């Protein structure tokens, strides 16, 4: 749809990068309109996982994660609506942070689900992650949802290699059935490491509404997407179906041929969920669940400074393995999407391997507690060497 579209403006994050003399190496591959968990929905071609080219790099920001894992650049940006930074970071053994909703300007980010989208860094280690955050975080008059709040120096959170005084919770819902055993054992080992570093780990944490997160997410995100993607009608820019007889046919055919199947599936889902007669049962109910999930996190994070979970229930899966089963594909984001629903920050850091494939540990915290997450991630990283392992390319 936008293959030949060159915007006449830069995203705020790009302007911030440019003002800091960053060198743009290239644009990375991703699932079309960020809809996917494997980069197999790319409008161009799939991206392979550097750790095993038979496998997916995760998604939607799979190109960014694979590129960093393959040493093609120092850092990359991704957008995270339900896990699109963290899940590929986990699959590719790199660091990925989804900031608090409103911490980074979304201006110039092609919108998927406006109330969930956040831009964040994908880097080789936690230090680089903090440096990128220093560059991109902050208020933007062009984005009314970007919060006007001072930006700390995130690298100052990295001076402490101990975790004394920090309380970390282990929410039981994230260690349920369906998790790959290698993933669970890697994360259990990581939790032990956090304890060794001085953190007080608690296992009495429950986020009881987690089981509804996936359903709520797949109502809210497609609903917003159905409106966000309405502008691609071939009238102003991008692809236009040639030879339509009239305006209506032009719009219809442009969208029929311009969008891939997953994008069309979500537009239809969203349009349906917002329709008269269904709105209350779907969209409104999903918003109520959203409030409950937020409350779950508020409660848990009153007692704990951070929550630790696997980033993904599995390691990188084989290409084509889930393309025929959208639900299986959606389940791949089960651990990551609650943070988007609650608007809280979450980071994925390399935490070991299962069957020679990377496992990511996710840390979630209160809104605007990126510094705490970076501190824990950094201490863990310095005490392990997972992030130093490179794929054999």
């Amino acid at each position, binding site marked *: 749809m936008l293959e030949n579209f060159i915007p*006449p403006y830069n995203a705020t994050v790009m302007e911030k990068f440019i003002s800091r003399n960053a060198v743009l190496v290239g644009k990375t591959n991703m699932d079309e309109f960020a809809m996917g968990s494997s980069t197999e929905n790319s409008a161009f071609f799939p991206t392979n996982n550097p750790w095993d080219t038979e496998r997916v790099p995760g998604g939607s920001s799979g190109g960014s994660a694979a590129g960093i894992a393959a040493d093609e650049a120092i850092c990359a940006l991704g957008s995270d609506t339900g896990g699109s930074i963290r899940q590929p970071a986990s699959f590719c053994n790199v660091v990925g942070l989804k900031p608090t909703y409103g911490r980074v300007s979304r201006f110039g980010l092609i*919108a998927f689900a406006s109330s969930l989208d956040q831009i964040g860094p994908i880097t080789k280690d936690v230090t680089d992650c903090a440096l990128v955050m220093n560059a991109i975080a902050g208020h933007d008059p062009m984005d009314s949802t970007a919060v006007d709040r001072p930006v700390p120096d995130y690298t100052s959170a990295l001076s402490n290699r101990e975790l004394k005084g920090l309380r970390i919770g282990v929410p039981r819902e994230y260690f349920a059935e369906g998790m790959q055993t290698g993933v669970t054992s890697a994360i259990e080992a990581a939790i032990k490491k956090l304890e060794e570093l001085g953190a007080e780990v608690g296992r009495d944490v429950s986020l009881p509404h987690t089981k509804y997160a996936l359903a709520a997410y797949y109502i809210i995100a497609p609903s917003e997407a159905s409106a966000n993607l309405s*502008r691609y009608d071939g009238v102003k820019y991008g692809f236009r179906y040639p030879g339509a007889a009239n305006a209506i046919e032009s719009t219809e055919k442009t969208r029929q041929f311009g969008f891939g199947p997953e994008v069309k599936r979500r537009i239809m889902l969203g349009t349906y969920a917002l329709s008269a007669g269904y709105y209350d049962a779907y969209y409104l109910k999903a918003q109520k669940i959203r409030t409950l999930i937020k409350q779950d996190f508020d409660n848990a994070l009153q007692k704990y400074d951070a929550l630790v979970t696997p980033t993904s229930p599995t390691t990188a899966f084989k290409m084509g393995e889930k393309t025929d089963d959208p639900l299986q594909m959606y389940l791949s984001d089960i651990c990551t999407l609650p943070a988007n629903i609650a608007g809280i920050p979450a980071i994925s850091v390399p935490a070991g391997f299962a069957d020679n494939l990377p496992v990511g540990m996710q840390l979630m915290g209160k809104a605007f507690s990126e510094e705490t997450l970076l501190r824990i991630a950094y201490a863990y990283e310095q005490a392990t060497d997972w992030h130093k392992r490179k794929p054999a390319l």
Partner: protein
Amino acid sequence: MDYETIIGLEVHAQLLTGSKMFCSCNANYTEAEPNSHVCPVCLGMPGVLPVINQKAVEYAMLSALALNCTVSEYTKFDRKNYNYPDLMKGYQISQYDFPIGKHGWLTIDINGNRKQVNITRVHLEEDVAKLHHEHHYSRVDVNRAGLPLMEIVSEPEISSPEEARDYLMKLHSILRYLGVSTCNMEDGSFRCDANISIRPIGCKELMAKVEVKNMNSFKAVYQALEYESRRQRKAVKEGEPIFQETRGWLDEKGETVSQRSKECADDYRYFPEPDLPPLIIDKTWIAKIKEKLPELPEARKNRFVAQYGLLLHDASVLTGSLKMADYFEECVKLAGKERAKAATTWILGDLSRLLNASGTGIGDTKVRPEHIADIIKLTGKNTISGPAAKTIIEETFHTGKSVDDIINDKDLRQVNDISEIQDLIKQAINDNPKAISDYRAGKEQALMFITGQVVKATSGRANPVAVKEILIEELGGK
């Protein structure tokens, strides 16, 4: 069976802000080249975000307050989804369940009967682009897209085309007083759509509701609703069904035609605009805007009656237009409060006649309040006669010359010294023996006739009162 008419009006007024509703583009596009007042935001490009125009919010608050609405402390924007080539994003940012203002009212006057029409809501939204249809294709001009639009929705409580017209005129007048919109119906900065239905008197249920569009003047609104209420009554009488539909008014044909059936209600799939946090309007802000409320037409009308002793009707006409009311008060300021009635007579009489005949607005005429004040003062002092004053105002209207200059140029100074015209009076008595005998026989009008003859002989300069007095004296009293 008798039927009653039920009308609800939806008015869209473009707000007179410097920039557009959600971007910083210049909102004044009237003289601009097509697509010159555009940016990525109002073009609906990927990834751009809206930012609320504070001025537009304040104008909507001001309007809501003027219309006796409650200003909501919690308001938000919503997306109204539909696809059309004039809609850049495929959705319009509007307000659904939390409008800026709600539960207001305004008072209309029909033949001296006052009626309160309730206003459901006042909300903000963005305008769409303009399509120019060519033979085989259409062109899109995006200059208008994203302009702030204020929608004012009345309750379906208007019961005749006359009431609808008066409601619109009152609303128009209020928005002009507030200075929030140019309110030009011709160029679309003040647009009106109407919902109209009929039902047997006493019946609670509404029959099929017809939406009427394309009415570009107060007269068109009146005529279209008049036509539509007749059409619906005739249909019912003849056993024809009335369809729920949208009909367009054709000015030249004087009728409405079906445009679109509305059997299935439009589904705009409203949902909260995630790109804009809810807008919280605190009490201090509301109070600050309230302070900016100017005197409104209704209050000004009542003041004119109390302060200047004007007739209610005259005060109502004068205050119907902000410019005319200001003009009147300027005249009174110059001529003195005791001459307010005379000023009214001149403004609503000769001046209005001249303005209407030439299609000139009161803000554009060469007759300035100083002219009117001079004329009133000079007629009051008998320096000029009434007919001379009429000549002067006409001359000023065309040339803009000062009253003094015209009096001098045309030698219009009234002759009050009767000795100057004694000869003319004598001649008139000689020339009109029949009138004299009529007068002596008791016919008062005969005296008026002779007086007129004398005044005429002086080209209107002789003071008729003085002439009449001397005539009576000459004719040996009554």
